[in-house]
C-alpha cells in the first residue's frame, strides 16, 4: 500500500470570511472597550468580575485561524514583520487598573479565564453577517469551552448593549431577543452613545 496515495487532509482556508470576521471582531472588541467607558450598565457587568478576567471568543478548531501575519521590506532592506491587529479570536480582558480593554487576537502570553468557541467559521460568519440571533447562536453554535457561567452571562449581557448601541435597529434586532423599548433606552442617549462610540472606535479607543 502506498501511503502517499492517502494524503493528510488540510482544512481549507476561507480567507474572505476570515477577513470579514476579523474586521467585525476588531470593531466589536474596540466597541467593548469604548462602551466600558461610556455606559454604566456595561461597566457594572464587568466590574463585578474578578480582576484577572480575560476572555477569548474564538472559532473551532482553535489553532486553524492564526492572527494575520505581515512582512514588508523597509527602504534599507530590513524586513519588518509583525502581527496585524486583525485576527479571528477576540480577546477582552482587564488591565492593571481593572478597566476593560480589547487585547487583540493573539492569545500568547495571556491567561484566558473564559473561552467561548464558535463551532465553525461558517457559524461565525452567520452570526457576524446578522443571519442568526445571538440567543440562537448561544444555544446552537457557541460553546463555553472553559470558564465560568457568571462571566459568560456578563459578556452576553454587555454584548447586547454594545450591539444595540453600535448597530442600526434593523441589524441589532437580530442579535437581541427583545429590542429595548424607549423607556429602557432613551433614543437621545442611544444616539449620543452611538456617535461617540463610532468616533472613538477608530480614534482614541
Amino acid at each position, binding site marked *: 500500500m502506498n501511503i502517499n496515495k492517502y494524503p493528510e487532509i488540510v482544512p481549507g482556508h476561507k480567507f474572505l470570511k476570515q477577513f470579514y470576521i476579523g474586521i467585525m471582531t476588531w470593531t466589536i472588541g474596540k466597541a467593548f472597550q469604548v462602551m466600558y467607558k461610556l455606559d454604566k450598565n456595561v461597566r457594572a457587568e464587568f466590574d463585578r468580575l474578578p480582576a484577572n478576567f480575560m476572555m477569548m471568543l474564538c472559532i473551532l478548531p482553535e489553532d486553524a485561524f492564526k492572527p494575520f501575519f505581515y512582512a514588508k521590506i523597509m527602504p534599507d532592506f530590513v524586513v519588518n514583520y509583525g502581527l496585524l491587529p486583525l485576527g479571528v479570536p477576540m480577546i477582552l480582558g482587564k488591565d492593571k487598573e481593572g478597566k476593560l480593554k480589547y487585547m487583540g487576537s493573539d492569545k500568547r502570553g495571556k491567561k484566558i479565564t473564559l473561552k467561548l468557541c464558535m463551532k465553525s467559521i461558517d457559524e461565525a460568519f452567520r452570526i457576524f453577517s446578522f443571519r442568526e440571533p445571538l440567543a440562537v447562536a448561544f444555544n446552537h453554535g457557541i460553546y463555553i469551552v472553559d470558564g465560568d457561567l457568571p462571566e459568560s452571562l456578563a459578556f452576553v449581557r454587555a454584548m447586547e448593549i454594545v450591539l444595540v448601541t453600535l448597530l442600526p435597529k434593523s441589524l441589532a434586532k437580530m442579535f*437581541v431577543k427583545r429590542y429595548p*423599548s424607549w423607556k429602557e433606552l432613551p433614543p437621545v442617549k442611544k444616539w449620543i452613545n452611538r456617535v461617540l462610540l463610532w468616533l472613538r472606535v477608530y480614534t482614541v479607543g
Partner: protein
Amino acid sequence: MLLPSYYDFCCRVKTVSGNKALEQIPGLLAGMNASRPMIITDKGVVAVGLIDIAKKAMGKKLKIVTVYDNVPVDSNYKIVDDAARVYRQKKCDSIIAIGGGSAIDTAKGVNIVASLGGSSLLEYEGFGAVKRKLNPLVVIPTTAGTGSEMTLVAVIADPDRKIKMLFVSYFMLPDIGVLDPRMTRTLPDFLTASTAMDAMTHACEAYFSMEKNPLSDSHAIQAIQTISQNLLHVVKNPGDLKGRAALAAASTMAGVAFSNAMVGLVHNLGHTVGAICHVPHGTAMSILLPYGLEYSLHRASDVIGELLFPIGGPDVYAATPKKERGEKAIELIRKMNQDLHDATGGKHPRFLKEIRDRNGAQVVPESVLETLAQAIMLDGARMSNPEEIYPADALMVYRHAWEGTPINRKKIDKGGKKVKW
C-alpha cells in the same frame, strides 16, 4: 414537529427500572469491574430505612464498603472533599448515590475528586474542567423529580464565598440510574407533589426552550402526559407502586429532555427564590410554572399550545380552538396546583405568599421581591428562554406569583422579533 437547523442530543445513562431493580445493582457494578462501592446519602434517607432496603436487596453478592450519610440539604464542596477523602482511605472503586438532588450532586462531585485526584473540588469548577472518564457511578433517586440521574451538571455551594458553583461535563453523567418504586414509596404527599411538579417544569420548559429538538421533545411530551395522568392519584394513594414507578419514569424522561434542551425562565426565577429565601426547589417550580408559561406565551403560542395535548388529553385538545390552547394548558396547570393543594390539606402552596416554614413563618415576604428581581440576572437559565426577561419584568411576574393573580398579558413588553427555532 419543529426541526431546528442544528441540534445535539446525548443520553447515555443506562436506566434500570422495576419492582426488583435494586437487585440488579451487584451484577451491573461487576460488569463495570467495580466491587467496592461507597454509598453517598443523607441522614433523612437513612432514617426512613431506605438504605436498609437497598442493602438487603443487593444482598450478600455485594459488599458495601462504607455509607457516607453527612450530605446536608444544600450540597457544599467541603462535604465533597471530606467524602472523597473517605473514599480514598477505604479504597472504594465506585459510588452508589441514594437520595434527592443534593445527595446525587454531592456524589457527582465526589466522583470527580476521587477519580481525578487533587485535594479539592474547587480545582474543577466551571465548564470543561473534567476531561476524562470517571469511576462508576450508580444513582438511585428517592424523589421523583430532580432528574439528576440523567444530567451532566452538579450544583455545589461554596459556603465561604456564598455562591453556587456549577460543574458541567459529559463525563459526570452517571453510568446507571436505578428506578425502584420501593425507594419513593415513603415520600410524603406534599413532597411527592412538589418534586413531581419540578419534573413537570423540566419537561414543559424543555418543550418551549430555544434549544428544543425532536429527540428532547418526545421525552418531554411523554413525561408531561405521565405526570398529568398519575400525580393526583399517587398523592391521594401513597401506596400506589405502579403510579410511583410511572412518576419515577416521568421524572427521568423530563431529566433527559431538559439536560439536552435546557430549562428557562421558570428555573431562572425559581433558582433565585431558592438562593435568597431558601424556598425548596420543587415548591418554587410548581408556583412559578404557570407564570413562566404565561409570560412567554406570546412568543411561542403554538408550541405552548401543543402542551395541552399531554396535559389535558385528546378530548380537551380537540375541543379547544388552536388560538386558546396555550391559555387552556396554563389554566389546567393552575388547576393541578389547586387540586394538589386540596389533596395535601394545604401543604402544597399555590402562591409565593402561602409558603410557610416549619414554625409557620412566611418564607417570602413581599419586601424581598425587589431584591429577587435584581438577582435574576445572575442565573444561567435565562439564556434558553424564548422571551427576554429583565429585572423590571421579573418584578412584575414575582408580584403576581406572590399574590396569586394571573399576569396581565397586555402589560408584557413584546418588542422584537418572533423566535426562530
